[in-house]
């Protein structure tokens, strides 16, 4: 069952407290003061500058500056502007947004209200993956409470500012997490990503200027308003400030959520917080940020979990979903699961992606069965290379990177399958 984080900080401090899930309780614990301050004492420009200066980066995967994104919204434009809250969370290994929705919906809504004022948005669309039925119920209840209290609607907090919030439930498609796939889905269409440009800031939801941010990104905002930039920047690294919620899964003693400053060494999260691998076994590899992010071998786990350091190791923070694999693990099986997922979820618009994900999966499965050829590894690398930076959306890159990562650090597993014509890891997890 979903559990409060084992290590908490400002975002998740009250997640164990049922009070925090109700509007009254949230306010008793200091909630909605930041929104009141923003709407009554701060100009939109001040807010944009503040969030820019805070260094807050998106927590949905790409790590782009939230304040910068807000500043892209056109100012001299009569069209209504919109915000989107991306709660599609389907990146394998990620489960932090789920608890933010279930236990921290008002915190997220407060961040949304502040963002709305800063960008002059008329409405926010919260897009929640269809399988998150209970989390969506929690959000809808919180939205209704906030409307009732007059925090949303025609005269938000009595300031004359008007802002509406709508909740849309998805229906099972990973690609709807990509921001323009999400926009299509929001409009009642197939969730196929759009060609860019135009970018969402010019042509977004229902054709209007739109900014998309992740659930967690919004949730940081009230804290920055309440306690200031210096306070916020005391967490994390110079380039990657604040905390994030790491989700640890796989072969560890204490799988779960951990809210820690960005820049916390991966080894500290895996071995100290999550208790390391049970049964006296050793770690073989760790995926640091959701399935799209390349794996790290046991020797590289001292890396601080912030993009400026992870990039040096050819990987990224992604969603902070950390998957730990012990020494029994067959990395070709891992590649098989990963390539199957991307083959299954490709929306099919781009040839390189549709065909490339299919080929990669076919070749990997062949190698796993012991029917691979020496040349297969080169073909895999060739296909993966051609998928990068050549498609409508970053899904194809996200499909190529993990396979490249596995071949970079664990090519001996692939070679052993091909040479021995069978899987040499009898104790590995079952496929």
């Amino acid at each position, binding site marked *: *069952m*979903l*559990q409060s984080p084992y290590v908490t900080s400002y975002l998740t401090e009250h997640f164990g407290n049922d009070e925090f899930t109700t509007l009254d309780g949230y306010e008793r614990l200091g909630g909605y003061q930041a929104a009141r301050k923003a709407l009554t004492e701060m100009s939109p420009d001040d807010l944009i500058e503040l969030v820019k200066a805070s260094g807050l980066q998106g927590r949905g995967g790409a790590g782009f500056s939230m304040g910068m994104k807000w500043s892209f919204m056109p100012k001299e434009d009569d069209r*209504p502007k919109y915000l989107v809250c991306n709660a599609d*969370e*389907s*990146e*394998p*290994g*990620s*489960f932090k947004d*789920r608890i933010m929705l279930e236990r921290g919906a008002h915190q997220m809504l407060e961040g949304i209200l502040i963002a709305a004022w800063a960008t002059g948005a008329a*409405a926010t*669309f919260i897009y929640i*993956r*269809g*399988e*998150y*039925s*209970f989390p969506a119920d929690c959000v809808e209840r919180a939205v209704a409470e906030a409307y009732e209290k007059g925090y949303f609607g025609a005269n938000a907090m009595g300031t004359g500012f008007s802002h*509406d919030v*709508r909740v*849309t*439930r*998805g*229906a*099972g*498609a*990973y690609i709807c997490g990509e921001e323009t796939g999400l926009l299509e889905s*929001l*409009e*009642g*269409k*197939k*969730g196929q990503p759009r060609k860019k440009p135009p970018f969402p800031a010019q042509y977004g*939801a*229902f054709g*209007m200027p739109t900014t998309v941010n992740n659930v967690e990104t919004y949730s940081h905002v009230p804290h920055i308003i309440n306690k200031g930039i210096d306070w916020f920047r005391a967490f994390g690294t110079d380039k990657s400030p604040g905390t994030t919620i790491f*989700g*640890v*899964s*796989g*072969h560890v003693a204490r*799988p*779960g*959520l951990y809210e820690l400053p960005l820049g916390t060494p991966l080894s500290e999260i895996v071995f100290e917080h999550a208790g390391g691998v049970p049964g006296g076994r050793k770690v073989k590899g760790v*995926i640091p940020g959701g*399935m799209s992010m390349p794996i790290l071998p046991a020797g590289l786990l001292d890396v601080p979990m912030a993009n400026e350091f992870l990039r040096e190791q050819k990987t990224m923070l992604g969603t902070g*979903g950390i*998957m730990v*694999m012990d020494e029994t*693990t067959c990395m070709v099986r*891992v590649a098989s*699961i*990963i390539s199957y*997922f991307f083959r299954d*979820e490709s929306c099919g618009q781009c040839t390189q992606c549709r065909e490339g994900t299919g080929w990669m999966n076919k070749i990997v499965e062949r190698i796993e069965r012991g029917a691979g050829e020496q040349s297969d590894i080169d073909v895999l690398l060739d296909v993966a290379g051609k998928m990068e930076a050549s498609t409508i959306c970053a899904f194809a890159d996200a499909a190529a990177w993990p396979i490249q990562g596995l071949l970079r650090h664990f090519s001996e597993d692939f070679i052993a399958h091909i040479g021995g014509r069978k899987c040499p890891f009898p104790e590995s*997890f*079952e*496929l």
Partner: protein
Amino acid sequence: MVISEPIRSEIDAEIAKFPKPRGALLRAMHLVQAEHGHVSTDCARELAEIFEMRPIEVMEVVSFYNMFFDKPQAKHHVYVCTNLPCSLRGARVLLAQLESHLGVQAPGDTADGRIHLGHEECLGACAYAPMMRIDDQYFEDLDVEKAKSILDSLGE
């Protein structure tokens, strides 16, 4: 009319909340499916009228999303997550045992139409693996015995 009056008025209320009517289409499909179990051709025709689309466009949307069905469904949908975090913790063994417990091969329905057993990609329950989704509920931290008894207790 196949879509009932109350559902129809809920759909109309949803449409009013979006800048363009089609913004309410996914919600409408969820509502229709909750009432009928799937989005039938007749329902699609009515949805097409409501949203001023062609029926084929409605069916295209239905077929794009894993959670929408164009055919009658088993009473309960059971999906075992087989993505990496769950597989590392025995999800595939669990699925195989549930297959033999129910006498079906996933994806497939039991002979009495009570259960559809399938596998699904990551459901955001990675630390509580293995897990399964039954209809709109999650069952986490499973072992084989626990999972079997949950399946056995599902209604007709």
